[in-house]
């Protein structure tokens, strides 16, 4: 049933090796730059691109197999073995992981190429590429791992790289704080993930702790334990994939360089949670309640992200909240057991969101690191390639047919409607309209109308080819990726869903024709309404509005950060200070200090006999030897 494919191990290994080499090169030359950026760029890009080629190779190898036996695995080495439990560093390529693999390596490679242009002239060019390679390697471990534990290695690895790259410009304190925030919030989620994994192991892990064994034994899991495991794993997903209540780190993560925002905080890492839920679809399919929780949290996050996104002024923050919102859609999809729809949205989202972020990076670079959209305007003529590619991305994000986002979003909404989750569908349509509104608010304010800052406008220039080329490739993806999963109503065959079917445990809902038309009609209507409101307000060149009332409330993100600060951070810090001031000095440090004091006093007492004269030491020796001889002669009874 299973084939072996040793090249699987090389897919994560290549970027990891690249990270090591780049890191060593950077360390060796960080005082005085001896290595030119070209060499760093070459070494940095070669790993991801080779991984992509290998991934394509794996894809064709899988395709050659019959549909129900599309599993290729490779056991690299035994990781550890405790008692009867043996965990090996195993990699599994099945339709789900290969789909993730393909777009992660493709988008990753493109962003590496783009970074050559974006990061040019950065003093730590090599370090940046080293981190980027390390990230990609961890992500590939996450995707390819054949069990929860191996996935967890990648899961933590991407968290670490996220932290390193958010605080990349570490001279600024704010960036470091943002990195810390991301890391700590992610740790809270990871705690849930670890607990969930432990419960899962406790339940059914004894027979083997990889996906295939777990899937075979899933029916043995007690229902209550199943709910616990699913919810705890989802806690991990809320951290990594920025869902309520742990979404707060993602907007702050925009402190990192823009390619990082594109790669990690939009296209790949944040989708890990969705991938994980889809991976455990055999568990989530068993407990409907857990799925409902996932779906509702997802759709509420989508709503919240969209509300916040409508009132942001920073070009990257708008995109960040749209990412939060789209991730919410994905969870709504996997929550209503439409796993393939959720994963398909992950897939298309990777293209158009990476495209939008890279386009935003191009704008930011052209304007010398200005990010406030109210300083931009009329850039359409100055940055034509960026404009047209970003327009495609925006249309895809807003869900305009026939761009990729339309099909994937529609698939989720249709699944919700057909599955009887009318509430989720209604909110989803509302969010779709809001998405169209804020996306085109961004496009209109940045690219249309008159320049708001003439001086900035005059100095703007289109980015170099190394940056525009990835934009064009991604735009092609954003334009056509949707056709891969064309639903039957448009004459398609849903290839992606069929491709994913062996990996997922899902039942495709069979809605009536009317349901399908309603879903599509709702999405299109929401798109049209959203874009027309944005057109009326912003296309003619609006000025920066002053937010009052609810808008101000939304601009300040409902003061959630402040709320967390008051309810969680400050009390926690207070407890920490109490421990530091009371418990540490008097309770835990007391005995330690007493022991130290005792030794010091003993030392002072015995110091007296250490006179330093060699004669005196000779006396001590004579006395000691005499006493010893005496005792010895007594005890031996001479």
């Amino acid at each position, binding site marked *: 049933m299973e084939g072996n494919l040793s090249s699987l191990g090389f897919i994560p290994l290549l970027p990891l090796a690249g990270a090591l080499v780049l890191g060593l090169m950077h360390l060796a030359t960080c005082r005085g730059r001896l290595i030119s950026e070209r060499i760093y760029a070459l070494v940095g890009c070669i790993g991801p691109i080779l991984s992509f080629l290998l991934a394509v190779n794996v894809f064709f190898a899988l395709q050659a197999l019959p549909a129900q036996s599309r599993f290729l695995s490779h056991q690299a080495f035994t990781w550890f073995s405790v008692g009867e439990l043996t965990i090996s560093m195993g990699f599994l390529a099945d339709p789900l992981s290969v789909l993730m693999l393909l777009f992660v390596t493709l988008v990753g490679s493109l962003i590496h190429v783009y970074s050559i242009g974006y990061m040019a002239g950065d003093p730590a060019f090599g370090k940046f590429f080293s981190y980027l390679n390390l990230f990609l390697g961890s992500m590939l471990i996450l995707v390819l791992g054949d069990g929860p534990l191996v996935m967890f290695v990648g899961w933590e690895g991407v968290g670490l790289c996220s932290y390193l790259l958010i605080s990349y410009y570490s001279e600024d304190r704010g960036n470091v704080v943002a990195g810390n925030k991301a890391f700590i919030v992610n740790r809270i989620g990871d705690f849930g993930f670890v607990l969930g994994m432990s419960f899962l192991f406790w339940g059914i892990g004894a027979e083997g702790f990889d996906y295939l064994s777990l899937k075979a034994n899933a029916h043995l899991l007690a229902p209550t334990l199943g709910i616990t495991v699913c919810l705890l794993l989802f806690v991990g997903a809320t951290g990594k994939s920025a869902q309520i209540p742990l979404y707060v780190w993602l907007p702050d993560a925009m402190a990192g360089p823009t390619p990082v925002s594109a790669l990690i905080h939009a296209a790949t890492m944040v989708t890990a949670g969705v991938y994980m839920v889809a991976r455990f679809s055999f568990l989530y399919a068993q407990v409907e309640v857990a799925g409902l929780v996932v779906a509702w949290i997802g759709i509420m996050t989508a709503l919240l992200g969209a509300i916040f996104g409508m009132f942001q002024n920073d070009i990257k923050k708008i995109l960040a909240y749209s990412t939060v919102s789209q991730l919410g859609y994905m969870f709504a999809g996997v929550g209503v057991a439409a796993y393939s729809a959720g994963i398909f949205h992950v897939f298309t989202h990777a293209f158009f969101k990476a495209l939008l972020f890279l386009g935003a990076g191009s704008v930011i670079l052209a304007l010398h690191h200005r990010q406030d959209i109210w300083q931009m305007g009329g850039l359409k003529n100055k940055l034509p390639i960026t404009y047209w590619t970003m327009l495609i991305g925006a249309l895809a994000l807003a869900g305009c047919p026939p761009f990729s986002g339309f099909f994937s979003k529609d698939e989720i909404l249709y699944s919700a409607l057909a599955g009887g989750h009318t509430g989720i569908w209604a909110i989803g349509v509302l969010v779709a309209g809001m998405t169209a509104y804020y996306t085109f608010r961004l496009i209109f304010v940045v690219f249309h109308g008159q320049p708001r800052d003439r001086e900035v406008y005059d100095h703007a220039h289109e980015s170099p080819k190394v940056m525009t080329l990835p934009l064009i490739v991604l735009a092609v993806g954003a334009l056509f990726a949707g056709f891969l999963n064309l639903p039957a109503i448009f004459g398609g065959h849903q290839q992606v869903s069929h491709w994913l079917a062996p990996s997922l445990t899902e039942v495709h809902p069979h809605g009536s024709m009317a349901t399908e038309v309603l879903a599509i009609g709702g999405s299109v209507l929401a798109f049209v309404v959203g874009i027309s409101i944005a057109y009326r307000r912003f296309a003619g060149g609006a000025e920066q509005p002053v937010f009052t009332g609810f808008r101000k409330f939304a601009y300040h993100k409902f003061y959630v950060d402040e709320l967390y600060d008051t309810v969680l951070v400050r009390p926690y810090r207070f407890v920490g200070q109490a421990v530091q001031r009371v418990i540490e000095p008097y309770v835990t440090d007391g005995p330690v200090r007493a022991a130290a004091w005792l030794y010091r006093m003993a030392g002072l007492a015995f110091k007296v*006999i*250490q*006179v330093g*004269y*060699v*004669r005196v030491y000779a006396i001590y020796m004579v006395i000691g030897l005499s006493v010893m001889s005496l005792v010895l002669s007594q005890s031996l009874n001479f």
Partner: protein
Amino acid sequence: MIEHYLSLSVLLFCLGVLGVISRRNVFVVFMSIELMLNAANLGFVAVARLHQSMDGHVLALMVMAVAAAEAALALAVVILLHKHKGNLDTNIFSLLKG
């Protein structure tokens, strides 16, 4: 007869100890140590003669060899000490004072 030999040995040993303890010149201390070694040798030889055994003689020869080696090392140390402070008074070298 053996008591006399052993008494002499103990006497010599005590003289050596006294010398080490009371004298301040490094050379004299060193010579006192040699005296102690020879006192021990005398004891060994005397007891070996008493028991008609070669063990004591072997040990005495061994002590002599060790004493020779020690003399070479100790004299080198003495030279270094003199180079270091220009004086051989043991009371000057009191770095170990607590």
